[in-house]
């Protein structure tokens, strides 16, 4: 064991003093974490710029209703509202501001918005009431007394008189201008439509909703998207470090004769393999710590690995560094060994769905993902770290455990300690 410790420390120092080693093991993963974390919604959510031009002005001031409407839009977080003065011609405005030319979104509130809306609303309310009378009469008339029916008929008469007093109105029409190539315009338009619907309901007096959607998450804690993907990133980079890192270290030490020098000492082959696996495992834990600290500082991620997570990380590090030892042990040429390492690690990294939801990929790709060890590694790690659900991780534990055992056996079998 003393010799394992010494060789482990030697490998560790050798790694720490190598700039490329540090870069590929730590800086490269952190760079990717930063990129993916930002792209897949780490910090603040997206906002859409929306210009509003309000023509509904009375005595030089916007009408009450149009003000309320704009305030409601403004209160929606994803909108960034900018008001355009009615004197501006939107066509020239768009052309004069080249930055808006292809992603302008302008909502035009027409003149008479308040008056028309209120008029329409009034006639609709009356209509609803008349309809209600009719509905009651038709469905429940047979159960009603003669005098009640009489009262209802009178009431309806009165409403009809009222209707004549309300100026006729067709309601108001808002105009939404957007470039047809603007992908976000659709989203903005549908949000606008739902705002208008809610407004319509309010105006006709429907306060209570019959159907509501409550947004809830399965994850209890307050989590960001980066929280969700962090275990995937950690798993992916433990995998690349194991497969690519161990491969290049082993093949280089084999090429330059250091392995031969060690093989000539009384150091047993098993100690050599153990030292390498141990070094990769420590590296995996260091990487996990660095990624978590980094994600916490930059993205406010709160996930922490528990004992199960650490155990799975250990198993993963053993499995993937054993693959590295196999490649480094089989392929003689350093360049070819490194190439083989990348050829395995990179496709696995992207195919396994470590960086994005598996559901985003076509179903045949999902089947491929489920054949890759990395899938089980990141899936298990996510179940433990984020969903706090270690009982769901028994399949990943089983798969990774078996793979680790198989790979380390192959690595031991394949590593040459003679005839080097």
């Amino acid at each position, binding site marked *: 064991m*003393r*010799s394992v410790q*010494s*060789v482990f420390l*030697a490998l560790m*120092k*050798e790694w720490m*003093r*190598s700039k490329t080693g540090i870069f590929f093991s730590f800086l490269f993963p952190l760079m990717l974490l930063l990129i993916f974390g930002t792209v897949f919604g780490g910090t603040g959510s997206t906002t859409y710029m929306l210009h509003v031009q309000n023509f509904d002005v009375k005595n030089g001031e916007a009408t009450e209703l149009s003000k309320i409407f704009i305030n409601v839009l403004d209160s929606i977080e994803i909108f960034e509202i900018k008001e355009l003065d009615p004197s501006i011609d939107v066509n020239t405005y768009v052309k004069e501001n080249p930055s808006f030319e292809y992603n302008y979104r302008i909502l035009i509130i027409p003149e008479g918005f308040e008056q028309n809306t209120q008029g329409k609303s009034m006639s609709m309310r009356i209509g609803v009431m008349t309809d209600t009378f009719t509905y009651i009469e038709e469905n429940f008339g047979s159960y009603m007394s003669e005098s009640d029916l009489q009262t209802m008929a009178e009431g309806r008469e009165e409403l009809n008189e009222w209707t004549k007093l309300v100026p006729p109105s067709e309601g108001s029409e808002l105009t939404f201008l957007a470039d047809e190539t603007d992908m976000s315009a659709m989203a903005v338009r549908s949000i606008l439509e739902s705002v208008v619907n809610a407004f319509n309901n309010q105006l006709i007096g429907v306060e209570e909703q019959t159907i509501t959607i409550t947004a809830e998450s399965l994850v209890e804690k307050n989590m960001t998207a980066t929280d969700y993907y962090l275990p995937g990133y950690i798993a992916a980079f433990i995998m690349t470090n194991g497969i690519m890192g161990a491969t290049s270290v082993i093949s280089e030490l084999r090429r*330059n*004769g*250091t392995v*031969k*020098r*060690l*093989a*000539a*000492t*009384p*150091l047993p082959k098993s100690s050599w393999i153990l030292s390498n696996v141990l070094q990769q495992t420590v590296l995996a834990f260091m990487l996990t710590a660095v990624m978590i600290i980094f994600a916490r500082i930059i993205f406010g991620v709160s996930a922490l690995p528990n004992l199960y997570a650490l155990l799975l990380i250990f198993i993963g590090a053993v499995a993937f560094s054993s693959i590295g030892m196999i490649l480094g042990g089989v392929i003689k040429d350093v360049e070819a060994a490194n190439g083989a390492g990348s050829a395995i690690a990179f496709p696995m990294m992207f195919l396994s769905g470590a960086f994005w939801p598996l559901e985003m990929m076509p179903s045949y790709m999902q089947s491929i993902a489920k054949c890759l060890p990395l899938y089980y590694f990141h899936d298990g790690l996510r179940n433990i770290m984020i969903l706090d659900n270690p009982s769901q991780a028994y399949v990943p534990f089983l798969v990774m455990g078996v793979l680790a055992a198989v790979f380390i056996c192959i690595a031991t079998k394949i590593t040459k300690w*003679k*005839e*080097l």
Partner: protein
Amino acid sequence: MPEKVVEVENLVKQYKTVTAVDRVSFDIYKGEVFSLVGPNGAGKTTTVEILECLRTPTSGSAKVLGFDLLNEEMEIKKRIGIMPQEFNAFERLTVKENVELIAKIYNVKPETKQVLEDLGLWEARNRQFHKLSGGMQRRVGVCMALISEPELLFLDEPTTGLDPHARRECWEVIRTLKKMGKTVFLTSHYMDEVGQLSDRAGVIVNGKLIVTNTVHDLISQHGGGIKVSVKGRKTKEAEKILQQFTKNVFHDTDIVTGKFKTRQEASKALAQLYQMGDGYRIEIIEPNMDDVFAQLAGHRVDERGELI
């Protein structure tokens, strides 16, 4: 007769198409520097690596320090110090770290300071291995071989690829080892090196050990005699004198050379040559290992170890 530390008998290493080592037998005695000399690909490294337990022989047997090569591998490994061909250590570890790593593997208390001072590396102890010159790297290799205080050292082509200055440095190291009482097994394709450093040598070509003997005996038996050359104006006259004492006289444009089997014969010719007066120069060339190899193998070996 001194104690045998290595006994090799009929060692064979057969690869698919080539026999790298072909029925090689020799002994190495305690305290001597033994060299295996031959061109590249002759089987030197294969032989050494079999004795270092880094390769398994196809057939034959050997005892190293009294232990059987096939059954007592770990006992042998514990007791020998090695420096492989084109030796390398952990590149970014310092001299001291590399040496002490080996000590820890052998589980010995390292006399690091002593060993590094003996080889003039104490000042460079904190320098990383890859930043050292080739000569210094080889010395680190020797330190790593010495740190476990082995009885027997294997140095496989310790000077190959070094510049002449570093080679001389390395020779001094090997002489130091001999003074320390170590037994050294050296391989080399530099004939002068073998002549300078070894007590005994074996000549190996194409996997076959042609001859093994003390360097002195090899030279006197296979060196091909003493050459006497005369350069200058009086070569015609000199040629006549040389021809009186030997049949082997060669004439070039302004140089004439006579080859003599013994020093006695040469001295007679020399006595007469010195009577000729001025205007010429006499050169006496004693045979060396180069000549031994040329005589035995029918070829010479160039600086890079290739047959010419």
